């Protein structure tokens, strides 16, 4: 994959670039602030890994740049990295295809991180469990989700984080087939019809997060 890295801390940026290169990716640009990121996004790339807090303001400039890039380059996957949850300016992106939000230390789990990169680059989503928890718990249980059983809730929450059926099954200590059955029930209950699996999964997650956000 061709990746753009935007991170102001030199130490972190170089570490990240090396990890990405070790994993066989091509880093087409490694920049230190939001303005340089927008300029670098002119190049051909699959994905931008962006730190939320960056110059020039030293605030959540990375999130603002992500919103801007989504408008100008919708096909570019964006993975935001942050030291802590700071969702002010990227709430509208959460749950949309090709967007991810992870805490920075998730980088250290190489396999999971690499998986998240691939998902976001191919139009999937990757949300940190804390983001999902923070968003879902912050709001009343929405009407559309009221029909789901607690188990289906758990499954959908994990899917919303961007997990595949396999990893969801591993986490809940269930068989993959059970997860598939749960997913079918969820799709039915949310009124989503089968017109391409990935798309339906994304819609389910969007419903989940949107109804959570529509307080």
């Amino acid at each position, binding site marked *: 994959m061709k990746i753009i890295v935007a991170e102001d*801390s030199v130490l972190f940026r170089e570490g990240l670039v090396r*990890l990405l290169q*070790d994993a066989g990716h091509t880093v087409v640009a490694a920049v230190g602030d939001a303005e340089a990121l927008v300029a670098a996004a002119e190049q051909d790339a699959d994905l931008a890994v962006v730190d939320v807090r960056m110059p020039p303001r030293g605030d959540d400039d990375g999130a603002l740049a992500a919103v801007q890039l989504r408008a100008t380059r919708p096909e570019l996957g964006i993975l935001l990295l942050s*030291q802590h949850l700071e969702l002010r300016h990227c709430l509208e992106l959460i749950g949309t295809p090709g967007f991810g939000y992870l805490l*920075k230390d998730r980088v250290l789990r190489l396999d999971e991180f690499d998986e998240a990169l691939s998902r976001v680059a191919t139009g999937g989503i990757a949300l940190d469990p804390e983001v999902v928890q923070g968003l879902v718990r912050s709001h009343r249980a929405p009407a559309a989700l009221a029909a789901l059983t607690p188990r289906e809730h758990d499954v959908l929450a994990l899917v919303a984080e961007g997990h595949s059926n396999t990893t969801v099954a591993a986490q809940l200590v269930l068989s993959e087939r059970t997860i598939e059955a749960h997913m079918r029930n969820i799709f039915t209950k949310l009124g989503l019809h089968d017109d391409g699996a990935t798309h339906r999964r994304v819609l389910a997650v969007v419903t989940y997060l949107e109804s959570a956000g529509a307080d």
Partner: protein
Amino acid sequence: MSPVLARVLTGAATAVALGAVAVGFMGGTPTTASAGLGASVAVAAGWVVLRRQPGNPVGPALAWSSACVALVLSNDVLAASAYTRHPLPLAGIAKQWWVGCWPVNLAGVLALLLLFPDGRLGGRLWRALPWTYAAATLGMIVSEWGGRQVDGQIAGVWSGPREVIGTVSMSLVGACLILAVASQVVRYRHGDQRRREQIRWLLLAGAAVVTLLIAGWVLQSLGVVIGFAYAPFLSGIVVLLPAAVGVAVLRHDLFDVDRLLGEGTAWVITLVVSAGIYSLVVATLGYAVAAGTGLGNAAAVFLTALPLLPLQRHVAGWVGRFVDRDRHVAVAEVERFAADVRTGRRQPEEIEEVLRLAQRDPLLRIQVVRPDGSWGLLDGRAVVAPTGIPLEAGGDEIARIRLGWDSARARRRITALAKAAWVPIEVSRLRLVLREALDEVEASSHRLAEAAAAERQRLERELHDGAQQRIVATGMRLRSLQRHLPPGQAAEVDTAVAELEETVAELRRIANGVRPVRLSDGLGAALAAVRDASPVPLSLVVDEPDHLDEATRLTAYLVVSEAVTNALKHAFARRIDVSIAPHGASVAITVVDDGVGGVPAVGLTALRDRIHSVGGTLKVWSPVGGGTRIEALL
């Protein structure tokens, strides 16, 4: 009046005064000679006025007020000599108007009354007055033509037309004199401040003359020789009156004439009343018990002395109301204001406006001392160099009153007013000092709260962007190295990286305690975490106002989380309702629980301090068994 004419007239008066001295010596009548000498005092005063104000007819009028008397006395001597063996020159004509010329005595005083203090006659009516007086004098002379005095008594009585002319003329003379006095009353009533002060000098001299006359009566009643008893009175007329007129014209604000006049009059009245009491007591006791004994006199003196001082004070106040009405009213106004301040009807800070009105000086300013020795106005503005009348309390200067219109008189007036205004001024000063101190305390605690909030934010950032970032970067380096290690050692690195992840999570928790990171996403986001941690149902309604500063936002968060902790820990609440809403320019926080209640009124000190540090207020309702309601306004 042209200066030349004024000098000629004054010169004539001088000649008459000197002539009286000469005639007195020639005729062997020392009384006339001394009258001429006495007249020279008024003549000299007239010259002084003339020298300073060359065209002012008050100068000649003053000279003639005494010279007229000297003139008549001289005529008496000449006329009397006509009936002796050695008549003096002009005795022939002098004896003809000997009896009838007496109105001339008062012609100078009449002129003075009509012209004083600025030398102008009033209207047409007043212009007619001198001519009427002259005609009346002429009538008097005609009616008494050829009359003769024997041993001071008029010899012979006229009848027929001469009697009619005499009666009419005498009435006219009386009417003219009364009108002349009235002219001064009119001038006083219509006059400005300066004119009034000048007339008050005349009044002062008049009051002194009356006092001396009363003293004359008293002395006479005590058996003093008449000539000696009335000497002060006569010299008062000859010396005091011209002196007062001279001062009035030349230096009307020389002394505090109002006070002199007021106190003088008050003492005269007190003396008269005391004398009355004395006579009454002597008479009563004489009839009743100890007629003519020393005991009776002593009792009379005692009983007279008893009411003397209180009486004087009352009379002084009473007289002040008439004689010095203006200042009396002004002082009363300020005193009434001070009483209103005591009863809480008015604010002491209004004192400046009250003094401005009382002093009739819109530019008057009160400057007060602050505790650090600097000076300021009552509205708090600083004053670099204070000026004006100092005001002291317990030996320390507390204020100065600066006048827009400064004069000796204005200073005396403000001194009297300041005495009445002392308490409101001191109270205003203390309130100003207190308010400034409170403002300073409030500002300083707000600054501290802001600094603390900024410090928390800085610390949180440093934990996140410094330590946490470094640890993660180190972890990434380990991961890179791991690739080149044999499997056994690679597993070691996994453990180390897992440790690092734990450390990062730990740091994140610590940073969150320093300042909840979700605060950047708004109060609602940060408080959602508080709600999520609550073991009992907690409803949260947050309508956060825009542009809350960091200190206020952090305080709001901490207030809610502390109140929630209290409700859970101490009140055993089963339900908590939290709401945050804009309230004008501030934010209102309400936390209600259904716990045991009974929070003491003085409790929640930490919460209170936290709220006060950003200039907020706290209200607590907590009936025993009725839950607790906390309302904070930040």
